[in-house]
């Protein structure tokens, strides 16, 4: 298995009435776990299917290693693919499913058996060889899908929301397994998901997509902590977003001075709920934070965390997410509180196009 670098150069794909991919330009490094993240209809699956060869791009090129594969038909691309609904062949046993790609490649019979066994061992399905798919759980079927895709030792592994049909617990377990297998094989992987948490956990790098365009490419940390625009900021994780002037108006004069305003009047201010916290009474005001007064409207206790919905005034409320420790003093509903937000955690976005505004200092 030779891991390959993939270059996606200026790919455009239009379906009747929709621009599914708009000048998409991405480079995936050898052995990298790369995720396409976005809401449904953002183009992530279209891009994956274009790489697989099920769609032909209208413009642009795709390189695997140094070879352009634009004109290679899907069955000759030597790319493994894992499908959302497993696509395990229901009329074949587990072993036959895994052997299917090997037979297409005319692998000698004597080699097929050992390869199948090894692949099934990798996905922990040893002993299931003669089962038929209808006797397998969803998680097991997806393991078959995974074994089947990697046994052909493809240059590249594509995964199209492989976990979205599984239940929550299994999803968490499977995403670790997928990551382990990918690391173990050192294969280049492109993964599609709409689940931002999954993307953050599993990826080396993420491309966030919306409306056929790549919004940002970066490590999970960069995507989460340093979003380039309002879309990325709100799509990944949760975010309190306010019209800039409105937010300024709820700050006291002292806090207001601390916020550096952008040159435009049309801007937004945002911060993550976990960056804010409720000020303990009688404590001094931290120098680099802004303060907002409000009343606890709702307290949602999640065990490890507690979420407060805090009403500031008639038109404005915000969310605070605090880590719960033994020392935490849970606030009751209807109690008056002061919310403290470090000013370094305030993100500014252009009100018109949503791009991030960074002001020095």
């Amino acid at each position, binding site marked *: 298995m030779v891991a390959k670098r993939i270059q996606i150069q200026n790919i455009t794909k239009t379906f009747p009435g929709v621009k599914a991919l708009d000048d998409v330009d991405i480079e995936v490094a050898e052995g990298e776990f790369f995720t396409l993240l976005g809401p449904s209809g953002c183009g992530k699956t279209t891009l994956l299917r274009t790489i*697989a*060869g*099920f769609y032909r791009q209208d413009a642009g090129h795709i390189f695997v290693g140094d070879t352009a594969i634009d004109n290679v*038909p*899907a*069955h*000759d*691309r*030597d*790319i*493994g*693919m894992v*499908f*959302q*609904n497993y*696509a*395990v*062949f*229901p*009329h074949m046993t587990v072993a036959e499913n895994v052997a*299917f*790609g090997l037979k*297409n*490649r005319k692998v000698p019979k004597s080699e097929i058996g050992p390869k199948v066994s090894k692949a099934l061992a990798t996905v922990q399905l040893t002993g299931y060889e003669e089962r038929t798919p209808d006797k397998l759980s969803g998680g097991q079927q997806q393991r078959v*899908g995974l074994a*089947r*895709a990697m046994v*052909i030792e493809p240059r590249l592994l*594509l995964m199209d929301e492989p976990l979205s049909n599984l239940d929550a617990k299994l999803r968490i377990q499977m995403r670790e397994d997928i990551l382990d297998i990918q690391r173990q094989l050192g294969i280049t992987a492109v993964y599609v998901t709409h689940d931002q948490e999954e993307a953050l956990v599993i990826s080396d790098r993420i491309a966030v997509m919306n409306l056929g365009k790549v919004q940002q490419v970066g490590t999970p940390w960069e995507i989460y902590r340093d979003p380039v625009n309002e879309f990325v900021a709100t799509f990944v994780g949760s975010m309190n977003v306010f019209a800039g002037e409105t937010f300024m108006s709820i700050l006291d004069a002292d806090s207001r001075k601390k916020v550096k305003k952008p040159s435009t009047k049309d801007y937004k201010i945002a911060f993550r709920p976990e960056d804010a916290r409720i000020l303990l009474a009688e404590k001094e005001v931290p120098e680099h934070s802004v303060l907002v007064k409000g009343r606890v409207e709702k307290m949602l206790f999640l065990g490890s965390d507690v979420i407060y919905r805090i009403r500031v005034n008639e038109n404005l409320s915000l969310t605070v997410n605090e880590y719960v420790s033994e020392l935490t003093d849970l606030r009751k509903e209807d109690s008056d509180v002061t919310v403290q937000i470090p000013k370094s955690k305030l993100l500014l976005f252009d009100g018109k196009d949503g791009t991030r505004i960074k002001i020095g200092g």
Partner: protein
Amino acid sequence: MINWIRKNGFWASVTLTGFVVFFILIFLPVANIVRESFFDATTGAFGIGNYITFFSTPYYTQALVNSFVVSIGGTLGSILLGVPLAFFTTRYRIRGTALLSTLATLALLTPPFLGAYAWIVMLGRNGFVRQLLMAIGINFPTIYGPLGIIIVFTLQFYPFVYLLTSSGLQTVDRSLEEAAESLGARPFKKFFKVTVPLVIPSITSGALLAFMLSLANFGTPMIIGARYRVLPTMAYNMYTSEVATRPAMASTISIILVFLASLAIFFQRYAANRRKYTSLLLNRPVVFTLKGSKNFFAHLVSYLIVALSTIPIIVVVVFAFRNTSGPVFTEGFGLDSFRRVIFDVPQAITNSLIFSITAVILIVIIGTLLGFVISRKRNTVNGILDTLLMSPYILPGTVLGIGFITTFNRQPFMLYGTATIIILAYFIRRLPYSVRSAVSILQQLDPALEEAGISLGAPPARAFRKISLPLMMPGIISGAVLSWITSINELSTSILLYVGGTITMPIRIYLSVMDGYFGPGSAMATILLAATGMALMVLNLLGDSKRNFV
């Protein structure tokens, strides 16, 4: 066009084949009928004269009225039998539901003219039931006439209402009825305010199907209609009568029939699509076990309904074994009638087998390929083809027969009197069902399966052969069996197209009945029923007894 084929290859030529089939076997015959209907038979003048004649002559308008009377009668009868049977068997524990369902399906698959014939044996002028009653002094009316037609239609077509309504009832989410109950609705109100409205689309859909089939049916009114003429029999007589053939009027009647049939189909589609309440996350309805007299009543009604539709089949089989002397039944039982049909007219049997099997092979291959093109290669051209190929639905057999004669008894298609013309008629009448069934099989087949095969290195053709085809096979086979059943039982088109050498079993039975030779007729009908029954058993083995009938 040529570029288009080169680009799209094999599948494009399938699409092209679809259009050619439509053009030759549907468009040309219909166009010829339309053209004939606009020309005056004597003067040759173009105009709507024939239509004016039709609507202003009581002789014709009476046939129109008669058609409506028996069709509406048959439809109401079907609802009256089908809905209660569906309700009882889906909501209450009825012993032997599988048997009831199989017998109802058998009734549905036996050709109506066999039912009509059986009723003559029972309640015809010399019917044995009638003679029994006569012996004890009751002068029971004969089956001939509109009431008889309505009875036969009812017993023939109620399974459509039954099958559709019971599948509708089975997909009414239990929670909906429970919600109604928890909101304070009493059982009676719950049933009429929640359950019934939810299955109304299914009932309507089945009823309109029964209506359309009644309207288009030819054999039944021909056999027991006596002088009660309906549109299909009138068109047939106009075309074949030795005294005064009036092909122009036959064409006019045909067009009116097609128009009425398309109205019925239009409303049927509308009813079927308008409100689909079936939910996927389903809490299946509870099946209650009734006690005491209620239980007895539910069983009685269910079995009575199915028995009524099974009686004709039993009568036909029993009479096949009775001894005869010419047209007269004599004492005792034997195989004489069978011997006569097998040795005297073996041709009808071999013809039927050869024609139907050849037609089915064509239907399966072309229907499956067209179904694949329509569901997997979606584009405007294939969308149009899909609609066009559905048109035989609205072509009554008699109309298609007339169209075939006018089209294929001259160059370049000189086919009249050949086996080919009958095979083509079987083929085109059944093709839409085959295409539909292939489409629905493919809809249940995840396209990702084939893509998985391709991504694993199988070229498209190999992926189709190794993955889609094996998965489609059970559906294709059961579709083929159904097509075979309908083809081997086909009467209304082939009766217009046959000559001595291309006679088939249904035609032979029809002629025997008309000549009063009930013995050989029954024997032939029994052979046909046995073939149908065996085919039905094959379907049951495939675990697919309820699909594709409607």
